[in-house]
């Protein structure tokens, strides 16, 4: 089912929950709503579900405006962060509840519930009470309850937030596979950008009720259109510096009191229109640790002191102070960086991002 959200807004007594959001979701796609808490992603989802009434704009399913349609008649299934299972009912009672409300034939209900439960791998737990299940099993029951109605649209509200890290990884793959197999259009709300990047066909990044970007995951990562998207997508987050772009001897330099870098002409020229300070962004992985042997050209290196070393296992996340400016860098752990070490870094300037600090819009990607 194709879902079109047009100029959708929601406010409560002047408090804005969602502001003029427009998103077009093609049939069969999985779209992630990504943003920090309070950004309006759940508000938007609940409007799609029909729990909240929009104060402006329209929601259409396959071209039919559904603003006034009751939640139960929208053909949706929803999975909640808290699972929202009915604690006094058994697993069977929970999964069959939507069907029982539709007053389906008992035999039909049994058959459908068994089929969905088997698909979710909980076919042998149907008689259990909810409290007797583990978190992962409860999540499967909740998913089963959403699927048993054979919905046209699946809504996920941070479904994995309450699971432990390993299980989250498993369920992530499972939900993705299930969604592709069944071909159900899905909306997935999350604050975890890794979940969004790995699962979604497209990601809608939101902040303070405003849609910041709606694009495929790679585009959000490589070509962020706003400062917010650049800072929010990617882990560890992008480093930002206030610099001035100067052109000397045919070379462009990004310069501040702390740093001085030669930057590529194609990127620098786009920033030339802005006078004064601009914001430069560098991802932690676009900075490498310089060996004595490496021969990086002048103007491509930064030197500083390691102030924090956080071992991540595969690599170390090192907080480097470059003449008083903080920067976070991913470093191969075999380098054995210790706090207090002097460090030379080589910057991959072809990946740097430039933003207008006033409008917070990218100067590179319009």
């Amino acid at each position, binding site marked *: 089912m194709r879902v079109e959200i047009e100029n959708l807004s929601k406010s409560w007594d002047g408090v804005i929950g969602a502001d003029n959001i427009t998103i077009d979701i093609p049939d069969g796609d999985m779209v992630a709503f990504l943003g920090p808490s309070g950004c309006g992603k759940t508000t938007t989802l*609940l409007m799609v*579900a*029909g*729990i909240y009434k929009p104060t402006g704009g329209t929601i259409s399913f396959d071209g039919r405006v559904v603003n006034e349609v*009751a*939640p*139960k008649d929208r053909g*949706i*299934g*929803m999975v*909640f*962060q*808290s*699972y*929202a*299972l*009915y*604690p*006094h009912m058994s697993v069977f009672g929970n999964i069959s*509840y*939507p069907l029982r*409300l*539709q007053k389906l034939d008992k035999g039909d209900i049994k058959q459908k519930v068994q089929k969905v439960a088997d698909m979710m791998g909980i076919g042998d737990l149907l008689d259990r*009470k*909810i*409290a*007797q*299940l583990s*978190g992962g099993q*409860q999540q499967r029951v909740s998913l089963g*309850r959403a699927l048993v*109605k054979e919905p046209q649209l699946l809504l996920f509200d941070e479904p994995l*937030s*309450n699971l432990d890290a390993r299980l989250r990884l498993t369920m992530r793959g499972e939900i993705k596979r299930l969604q592709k197999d069944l071909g159900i259009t899905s909306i997935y709300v999350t604050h975890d950008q890794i979940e969004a990047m790995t699962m979604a066909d497209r990601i809608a990044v939101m902040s303070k009720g405003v849609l910041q970007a709606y694009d495929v995951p790679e585009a959000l990562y490589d070509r962020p259109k706003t400062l917010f998207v650049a800072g929010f997508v990617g882990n560890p987050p992008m480093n930002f510096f206030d610099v001035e772009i100067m052109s000397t001897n045919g070379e462009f330099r990004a310069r501040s009191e702390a740093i001085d870098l030669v930057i590529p002409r194609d990127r620098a020229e786009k920033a030339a229109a802005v006078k004064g300070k601009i914001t430069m962004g560098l991802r932690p992985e676009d900075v490498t640790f310089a060996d004595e042997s490496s021969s990086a050209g002048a103007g491509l290196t930064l030197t500083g002191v390691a102030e924090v070393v956080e071992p991540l296992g595969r690599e170390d996340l090192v907080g480097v102070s470059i003449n008083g400016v903080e920067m976070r860098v991913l470093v191969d752990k075999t380098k054995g960086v210790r706090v207090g070490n002097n460090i030379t870094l080589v910057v991959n300037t072809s990946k740097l991002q430039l933003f207008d600090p006033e409008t917070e819009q990218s100067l590179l990607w319009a």
Partner: protein
Amino acid sequence: MTATTTAGRRPLGPRIYGFLRSIPTWVLWILVVLWTIPTFGLLVNSLRTRDAQRTSGWWLAWQDGANGFDFPTLQNYEAVLGAEATGGLANGLLNSASIAIVATIIPIAIAAFAAYAFAWIDFRGREWLFIGTIALLAVPTQVSLIPLLQAYSSGVRMTIPIIEKTVTIIPDMGLAGTIPAVWLTHTGFALPFAIFLLHNYIAGLPKDLFESARIDGADHFKIFWKLVVPLSIPVLAAFAIFQFLWTWNDYLIALTMIGGNRVALPATVVVASLAGEFGLREHLLTAGAFVITVVPLVVFFALQRFFVRGITAGSVKG
């Protein structure tokens, strides 16, 4: 402080801490003993003869045998429950049951609906209506009893000034002296508190459950019966205990509303009248009080597990 200096004794700090920590327990024990003494005395006296009761205090009951009195004896209980007892306590107990059971069920039924509506249905003026309902908690029972009795017996009429027209707001129902008058009064005075208590609990049920149920296709009525009622059993039981005890033990409302209609009087009023004129049968009060107490105790122990049981365990995580 080292462990070697005072072998076998705990250091001073932990000992003081342990002592301080045990204080609440001791205070509780003292309270329990203090509050149990009168009840215990009542129990002892109920097993003594009239003359023994008049001769000495209950703490001297162990001397009764030496003084030529029967102890323990069930003759007070026989007198109280027997047919010859004034008014008939057995009849009074039945009346009490019919008052307490109905006066517990009606407020619960109304308050559960109201509490759900106040908590989960959006309607205009919800907040003010709720505040108004809770404000009724402040109405003192004693002051409103006589006007209520008048309303039950002869209705309420108001004469509109200037046009001098009299309108009937409440018709004559002739309820004075009947048990329904007691039901109505208990219901009225219980509702504000019941709504307040149930609302707090029902409003605290997880929001997701209601959203999920709505998506699954449940309307308010289904949500109320299939979700709210089963999940609210602890608070419903808690309120039921309170209300049952209160209505069972009530004396004032029953006596005011029923008054002279002796066959409808509850056990509390019957027991009070057992003493008779000039307190001739005062010695029967002890046994009567104990007979009345048995029923609430049974109710309490039957329902108390609901206080402890966390029925919402496992509904939502996190």
